[in-house]
């Protein structure tokens, strides 16, 4: 079976083509802005402009035509309304014209589902990106959220801090570099709030300390990472303990961070469970994860009518009945 998936919840437009076992194509284009930040209309414009060239590129890379495709999948939410609408419209057009089934995919779930292409069976997922931060796992036929950010995503927190330090966007990789040269841990507010996470207090305090001019930026970057990541690992570990699952996966754009990988890996080893991070192009926002999840959903009996393809800006992870497992 071959699925084509379109991702476009935020600033990345991605088209992926996959089979059950293999990624045949996974092409993207990300709208980059000076400041980062959220620009729904610009993202929509970007996606609309790049849709056709990327579709062509994906089909060409995969060496197939639309006739070879068995199911069309698209990111139905959560995300930026105008961007989602562009993606949904494109997916409908393909499905109607080529008379193919269409499946709307929850973006957060897709980030975790793609790990199953690599033999992961039933993981706890730590999904960390610019806008999202969520710990999720299957329980009782749905992906339950065991903890999530109450304010900003960890990626945004890092990017905002980086901007404050005057290093460009995206800040993640640069903060990571700086942090490697950190020598001293500076106390910062811890980010666990009950079952959930909150990064705004940590961010505010890090910025305040930076502005005093009394601290080395390397130490601040290091302390920022240590504090934020410890909170992420703690919430993830709790979910592991609660669910008794034996695999943990790290997904989303922030999964690029080596320190976070290391900390999560240590936790997994301590508990004697498996730890997995997919290749980066399948961690970041991408079409292949949408295609793959759509394929699994379709094979598992999920069916959409065109009327069911309305976008869901606030699409909740636990809204989806996982009947395809």
């Amino acid at each position, binding site marked *: 079976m071959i699925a084509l998936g379109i991702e476009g919840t935020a600033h990345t437009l991605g088209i992926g083509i996959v089979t059950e076992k293999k990624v045949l194509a996974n092409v993207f284009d990300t709208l980059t802005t000076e400041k980062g930040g959220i620009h729904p209309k610009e993202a*929509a414009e970007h996606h609309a402009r790049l*849709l056709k060239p990327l579709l062509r590129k994906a089909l060409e890379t995969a060496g197939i035509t639309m006739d070879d495709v068995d199911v069309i999948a698209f990111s139905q939410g959560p995300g930026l309304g105008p961007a989602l609408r562009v993606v*949904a*419209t*494109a997916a*409908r*057009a*393909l499905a109607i014209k080529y008379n193919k089934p269409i499946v709307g995919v929850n973006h957060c779930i897709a980030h975790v589902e793609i790990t199953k292409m690599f033999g992961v069976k039933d993981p706890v997922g730590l999904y960390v990106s610019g806008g999202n931060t969520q710990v999720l796992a299957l329980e009782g036929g749905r992906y339950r959220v065991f903890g999530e950010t109450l304010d900003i995503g960890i990626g945004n927190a890092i990017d905002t801090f980086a901007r404050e330090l005057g290093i460009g966007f995206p800040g993640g990789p640069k903060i990571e570099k700086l942090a490697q040269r950190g020598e001293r841990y500076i106390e910062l507010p811890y980010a666990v709030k009950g079952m959930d996470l909150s990064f705004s207090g940590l961010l505010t305090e890090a910025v305040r300390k930076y502005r005093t001019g009394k601290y080395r930026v390397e130490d601040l970057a290091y302390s920022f990472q240590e504090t934020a990541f410890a909170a992420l690992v703690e919430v993830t570990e709790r979910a592991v303990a609660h669910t008794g699952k034996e695999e943990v996966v790290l997904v989303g754009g922030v999964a690029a961070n080596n320190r976070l990988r290391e900390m999560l890996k240590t936790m997994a080893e301590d508990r004697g469970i498996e730890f997995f991070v997919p290749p980066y192009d399948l961690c970041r926002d991408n079409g292949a994860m949408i295609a793959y999840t759509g394929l699994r959903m379709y094979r598992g009996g999920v069916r959409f009518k065109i*009327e069911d393809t*309305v976008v869901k800006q606030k699409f909740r992870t636990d809204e989806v009945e996982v009947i395809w497992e």
Partner: protein
Amino acid sequence: MNEPIEGYIEIEFPTEEVARVVYESVRIEHETVPYRRTRASFTLNGRKIRLEFKATDNSALRGTLNSYLRWIKVALDSIDL
């Protein structure tokens, strides 16, 4: 500006089939536009798609026209590989 504005945009496609695919793809968006300061009707007639609109808000109208034209373009681009 709160002057009444009205008008229409009509697009003629090469075949009824193309018009139908574009229309059906965009119709769901038309039906679920979240809040409206522009009233719009969106209809298919053979090879033609017609958007009629009435507004009293210039910027809202601009937003509406941009959205519909964007959706139409995307639908058409997707089937023109």
